[in-house]
């Protein structure tokens, strides 16, 4: 981890302590499966497993975005449900820290289905629900509800098969880059380093376009805490300062600008994983309206 950044007043910022013990502790556990769908055309990591979702949020501060309809209340957009869509920096960070492994979902599941069919395994999709909506486990009652499960629950730990369909991080990044022309190799590395900088200060990081920036930073889980900052990555101009400063101050945030210290302006199309996973140092400033003028 890098702590070479001399701009950070780390003495009064408790967030800057990095909990290394927690990361190493995890290595004894099995890595979290990060299923990739549409690998070649639009690679996306979607989490369907509730336990994984909990671990990501509780232990690693990975928020992702819930994009599924909450079936109990399917006509509103405040509260959404599984799947959880991770954004690219979250994915890279999880892989770099050996917390997650990427899986070619469609091919893995197809092969698994064949195996299950050959064994004659098939899960039931009817259950018995009580009037209050809770599941009735007593076998005496006959099923009254037909359901779709979030994920497959049979034989979820076929390690050989998982291993066979694991995706190399380089392949994932290459697919991502070839499908996202606004991103290039060097920009990808810079932006990830900037993400990692906030992540290592234990901020909870969300995408920030709604607030006019690249990221929104929360001091902890946004379920309980207001966001502190809107972050603009890399290049800025005076307009950004005027607009960003005004905007964030109005909603009790500040506007943070950040740049990779040793970034070069070269536009690389390829990515070296070594360079991506190397430590970096950042120049950071926090901007707010001065309150006069």
């Amino acid at each position, binding site marked *: 981890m890098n702590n070479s950044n001399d701009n*950070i007043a780390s003495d009064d910022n408790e967030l800057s302590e990095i909990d290394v013990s927690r990361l190493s502790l995890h290595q004894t556990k099995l890595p979290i499966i990060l299923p990739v769908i549409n690998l070649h055309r639009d690679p996306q990591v979607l989490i369907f497993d509730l336990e994984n979702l909990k671990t990501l949020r509780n232990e690693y501060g990975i928020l992702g975005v819930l994009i599924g309809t909450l079936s109990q209340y399917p006509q509103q957009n405040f509260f959404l449900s599984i799947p959880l869509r991770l954004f690219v920096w979250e994915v890279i960070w999880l892989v770099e820290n050996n917390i997650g492994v990427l899986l070619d979902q469609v091919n893995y599941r197809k092969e698994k289905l064949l195996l299950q069919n050959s064994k004659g395994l098939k899960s039931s999709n009817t259950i018995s629900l009580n009037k209050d909506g809770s599941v009735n486990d007593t076998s005496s009652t006959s099923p009254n509800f037909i359901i779709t499960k979030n994920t497959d629950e049979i034989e979820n730990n076929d390690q050989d098969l998982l291993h066979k369909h694991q995706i190399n991080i380089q392949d994932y990044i290459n697919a991502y880059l070839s499908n996202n022309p606004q991103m290039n190799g060097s920009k990808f590395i810079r932006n990830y380093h900037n993400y990692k900088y906030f992540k290592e200060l234990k901020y909870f990081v969300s995408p920030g376009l709604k607030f006019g920036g690249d990221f929104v930073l929360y001091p902890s889980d946004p379920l309980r805490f207001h966001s502190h900052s809107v972050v603009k990555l890399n290049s800025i*101009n005076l307009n950004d300062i005027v607009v960003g400063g005004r905007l964030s101050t109005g909603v009790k945030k500040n506007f943070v600008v950040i740049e990779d210290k040793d970034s070069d302006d070269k536009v690389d199309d390829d990515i070296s994983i070594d360079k991506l996973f190397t430590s970096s140092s950042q120049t950071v400033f926090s901007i707010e309206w001065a309150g006069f003028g």
Partner: protein
Amino acid sequence: MSIESDKVNSTTKDDITEHSLSEQVKLNLVHYNLWTNVIIHDTTPSPSSSVISGISPTSKQLEWIVPKSFTNKDITIPEIETWFVQITTINTKRPSKLIIAIVNDDSTVVYYNIHDGLVKPKQN
């Protein structure tokens, strides 16, 4: 928005403009925002930006101000870093924040705090 910037050698004109920019901000601080002890510091050899210090009527604190003209919108993060370094040469200590004064061609001056590093927003 990048328009023509093939600058001809016109340092003298830039110097005048730079100086008047500081004067403009000083005037605004003293007679519009009612600051006291406002001083323009010459930061030769770098003509890119001069630095102003003064005492704010609300906080009664010594503040550092860097004027910028809104006519040229370009600014970089390393440039902000050099301002902090410049102030350090005048003040012996690196300040925890400075104020950027952005001067528009209609004489409006807008001020933004730039804190060194990542800080929490004001809580109120």
